[in-house]
């Protein structure tokens, strides 16, 4: 039975790295770095008052979305919560359009009308960006229903946090997904804190076992290691695509920043954050592998760094120069006319 398949030990990234090409390894590095630098820039623009409202940064969690996305096929769908900038970049959405949405400008993916939490791209199969904790779970299950109904062989990757796992609608979704064998991969991004409440204080039991009663296999994965994430995603996305029904992958990860920009994060120690940053950083980890295996040199990695910084700077510049939406936009897109 699939649920009992053995998994690699969380820190053993040596084996999967060999199954991945050099170009792929460099691609993951570049993508994770892009998300990291993009989020840092977003934080800076927020500090300057150019981004308003809520802004939830993905810094620290980059390996999760980059590893999972690498296992998908064109046409597979992606949906997540409001900590969504990284997912959009990993789906191939343009950094300029994402940043311009953060600044509320007309060049943003939602023309400035959605904001940080609400961006979408039909072209890239990214279905949001949802602001109600857990709301994306039945929606993603519905995307999977759509894949099955249309027989398009697609899979939905539905991301949720460790906070969402206690919402009732998540279990309503698990039940229907298992009952109808829907092609959905539920990816729990367990960054240990639901806003200010730690997993221990909010959630009984193990999160990857939350589907057990429905017969949904669940696995824990080291979400700080992109290669481990990729290996798990490869295996289980295929399994789901083969018509076996849903799976739950719990990614053990960590966010370095507060829940949102205005969160001083007093619920955890500085030492805890520092330890994760220095010992478990997903970018540093991959960098070490790249250098050790001779895939890259310090110099070639600096080139990637410069390339990424240029993309991010360009996005920040665009996001400030793109005009605010025309006042007439206030009334458009409420309903599809005709």
């Amino acid at each position: 039975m699939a649920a009992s398949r053995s998994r690699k030990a969380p820190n053993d990234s040596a084996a999967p790295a060999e199954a991945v090409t050099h170009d792929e390894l460099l691609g993951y590095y570049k993508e994770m770095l892009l998300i990291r630098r993009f989020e840092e820039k977003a934080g800076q623009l927020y500090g300057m008052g150019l981004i308003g409202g809520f802004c939830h940064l993905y810094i620290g969690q980059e390996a999760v979305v980059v590893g999972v996305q690498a296992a998908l096929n064109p046409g597979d769908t992606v949906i997540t919560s409001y900590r969504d900038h990284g997912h959009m970049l990993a789906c191939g959405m343009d950094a300029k359009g994402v940043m311009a949405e953060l600044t509320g400008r007309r060049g943003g993916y939602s023309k400035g009308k959605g904001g940080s939490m609400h961006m979408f791209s039909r072209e890239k199969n990214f279905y949001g960006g949802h602001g109600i904790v857990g709301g994306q779970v039945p929606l993603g299950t519905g995307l999977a229903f759509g894949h099955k109904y249309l027989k398009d062989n697609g899979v939905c990757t539905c991301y949720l946090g460790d906070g969402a796992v206690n919402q009732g609608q998540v279990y309503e979704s698990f039940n229907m997904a298992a009952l109808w064998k829907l092609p959905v991969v539920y990816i729990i991004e367990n960054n240990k804190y639901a806003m200010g409440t730690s997993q221990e204080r909010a959630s009984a039991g193990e999160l990857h076992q939350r589907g057990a009663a429905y017969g949904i296999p669940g696995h824990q994965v080291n979400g700080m290691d992109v290669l481990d994430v990729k290996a798990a995603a490869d295996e289980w996305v295929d399994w789901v695509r083969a018509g076996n029904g849903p799976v739950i992958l719990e990614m053990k990860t960590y966010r370095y920043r507060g829940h949102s920009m205005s969160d001083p994060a007093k619920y955890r120690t500085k030492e805890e954050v520092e330890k994760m940053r220095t010992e478990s950083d997903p970018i540093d980890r991959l960098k070490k592998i790249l250098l050790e295996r001779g895939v890259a040199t310090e110099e070639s990695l600096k080139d990637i760094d410069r390339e990424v910084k240029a993309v991010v700077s360009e996005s920040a510049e665009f996001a400030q120069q793109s005009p605010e939406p025309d006042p007439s936009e206030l009334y458009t897109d409420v309903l599809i006319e005709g």
Partner: protein
Amino acid sequence: MPIEVLMPALSPTMTEGKLAKWVKKEGDSVKSGDVIAEIETDKATMEVEAVDEGRIGKILVAEGTENVAVNTPIAVLLEEGEDASAIAGGEKPKTAALPSVKGDEAPAASTLPATPASGPAAPPPSDEDKFFEKTVKRTVREALRDAMAEEMRRDEKVFVMGEEVAQYQGAYKVTQNLLQEFGPDRVIDTPITEYGFSGLAVGAGFKGLRPVVEFMTFNFAMQAIDHIINSAAKTLYMSGGQMGCPIVFRGPNGAAARVGAQHSQDYASWYAHCPGLKVVSPYSAADAKGLLKAAIRDPNPVVFLENEILYGQSFDVPESEDFIVPIGRAKIVRAGKDVTITAYSLMVGHALAAAEALAKEGIDAEVIDLRTIRPLDVHTIVESVKKTNRLVSVEEGWPVCGIGSEMAAIAMDHAFDYLDAPVVRVHGVDVPMPYAANLEKLALPQIEHIVAAAKKVLYRG
């Protein structure tokens, strides 16, 4: 070139703060993510992290300084190879980001598009009348079923889901025989899980399918109202027009008979409140069929409020499958000149009965079946009031912020100078629905209430 580090805003409401502490000093190297200072915001003490790499060239604001405005330069960062002379050299440091380039200035309220001076827009055109040359008798139940079956034959992306819709043939038999014709992939029994299956259906709608979601009654849709509003109604706007959701939420609404407070509620005004939704509530079988077909074809989310008591009532329904009733068009079901009575769903029958009673007393009432609650056919209502100069609104729901309140506002906005009497609202009593037969009757609008209201606006005893 040196980079200025600016006083950051670290909460949505912060305009200034105290520079509590410098963690780095002049000469220290910093890289992205390093904490360089602590500031006190209006809410908490927060850490300021470096975004750029470099060396602290100069600290411009000493620690302990209060009321430092957001975006004030607080330090200068030197890039690799630069020294402090780069600051002294008078070269204007670049700020860490460009100043905001605003678009058009925010407009004065008066420049925003408003209702045209010519009055409310005319409703969408309709050719529905011509189809009544050839009709058959159908119950509302059969008409709804026929509408779904015809649309499912027409478009394979249409499917029906809900509790007991398939094998049981519908809790109220509205989906009778759909399973036999279309099979279990398109007629789907769900668990009792309204929140979940509504969200699932909305997701399927995003994917391009056309779900018809049956709620056993709209009372249970309260479990799902988050997805109806937050997911179905708002996503098109939040996505800048990319992500529409063609979906119908349908089922019986309002009081049935003796089922108590939790099963007897009219949700018309709840859903009508929300932009991004269309809300339909038909009375006759013909309208039920024509409007449900329109709702299924509509690219937007439609809340379709039926009535259990009407399910068994028969009406003439056009035979043609091309018969469609456009959403957003009211119908004058009885022409008259003395008073306008608006109603929807079951209350249309009450209003017509009241009009007959009024006729016996020489009062010629015009009855408008609203049919669509959002968008309301304001044009038809206003034109009628301009003719009769009096308006009575009838609804089963509660009075506060109800459909009748909206009718009164419409009359004020568009027909104030034509009114010869204040608008009178007939509505359910402002209490949870009681169970006792006598109390339930007292809680619901009756024909005599409508008659009395019409006489009141006519100043006839």
